[in-house]
């Protein structure tokens, strides 16, 4: 009887928090990019880059948002987004603060691919 109640699906579950806990996020990749390309510090999120981005007009790629996600440690799914970038550099041309966005993207791709492969390995290990 009790078992019955326990296994019954009541249609409720514990909601996952949407909050980003800034005390717990991993900012190693963000810090690496900030060190390797210091102009990354200068972004004021004006969105000029995204406005001019061809990839951003047709896909969910949003370079301003990607930059911010990295700096808040929200890395999942970013690598796939970065694949939409064609490295045309228009974002770099319009940036009022001179952020070398192209270089930032290349660094992100490099660092995130390492992150993604580690994630993959971890997953596989757990499965074994």
């Amino acid at each position, binding site marked *: 009887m009790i078992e019955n109640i326990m296994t019954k699906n009541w249609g409720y579950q514990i909601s996952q928090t949407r909050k980003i806990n800034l005390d717990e996020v991993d900012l190693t990749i963000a810090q690496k990019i900030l060190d390797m390309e210091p102009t990354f510090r200068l972004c004021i999120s004006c969105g000029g880059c995204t406005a001019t981005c061809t990839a*951003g007009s047709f896909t969910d790629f949003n370079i301003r948002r990607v930059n911010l996600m990295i700096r808040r440690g929200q890395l999942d799914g970013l690598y796939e987004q970065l694949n939409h970038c064609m490295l045309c550099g228009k974002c770099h041309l319009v940036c009022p*603060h001179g952020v070398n966005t192209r270089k930032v993207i290349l660094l992100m791709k490099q660092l995130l691919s390492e992150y993604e492969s580690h994630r993959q390995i971890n997953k596989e290990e757990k499965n074994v």
Partner: protein
Amino acid sequence: MSNKKIVVIGGGPGGLETANALARLGYSVEVLEKEEVLGGHIRHWYKLFPNLKDADEVIDFLKERAKNPNITISMGEAMSEMTKNGNTFEIKTSKGRDITADVVIAATGFEAFKAERKEEFGYSVYNNVFTSVEIEEMLRSKGTVTTREGKVPQTVAIVHCVGSRDEKVGNFYCSRVCCICGVKQAIEIRKLLPDSQVFNYYMDMRMTGQYFEELYRESQEKWGVHYIRGRVSEASQTIDGMIQIKAEDTLLAKPVIKKVDMLILMVAIEASPSTAQIAKQFDIEYDYGFIRSRDRHNEDQYTPVDGMFAVGTAKGPQTLKETLADARATAEQVAEYLKTSSNE
């Protein structure tokens, strides 16, 4: 009171009010004004933020005060060269006159950013791209706002930070007055053209002065002005002659495009050529060609050059209100300078 020669370079609000205040303290002053009229940029302005007072009210006030026996105004005469010789300044004017001055007040002001330099906004390429200065002039001369073809605009977009906070044109600084000027012009357009829609494209709305925030609020509450947080990346002309602009609505994280009848560029405040000339020649450049004061807080009316003072936008972006207060402070500091030590 003093037989010292005081020369004010520039007959805009800063220069005029410095001369006015000095004259009232009993000093004789000569004002050099390169144009044939007094008032500087403000004489092109229509109404002033934040209370939409007629700009003429201020000019008339300043000119009326300048009718003083202690003030000599040399109109149509510019400073072409200035050197320091011992304790005095040798000024050559555009009329070939040589003036020896004991005290010089640089009221050489600013120049509006040349919008052509931001090619991507299409100024002087597309017909209906205007600068904020042109809108003031249009309001002043016509009392309304129209496209270059004389049509009443339905949609207007205002682009903030044109030439300000922009490394691509070499200006890192904020011009400080354009945010509120954009709010003011949006209200003016909405008042005159109730059927119009006005959109402000901004990176940050900086309501730094008293009553600025209230005007911003009024623009939303009473006049339905729209605000989009995103920097415009480019403008282009459509086949029907409208201007299409691209931006990211950063708060939605989506690119947005919009067609408008008029695009208004909030142009930056840059150092005028005379300001930059003095700053460079006397090696007292703050940055971007503006003149550096001796100390930001304690001696902001003095320059590092003994006997030379600077007032208003010659030192960097200022509102008219700040410039007038600065002018009165400068007069007081000049008087103090002449009274202390062996200057008098």
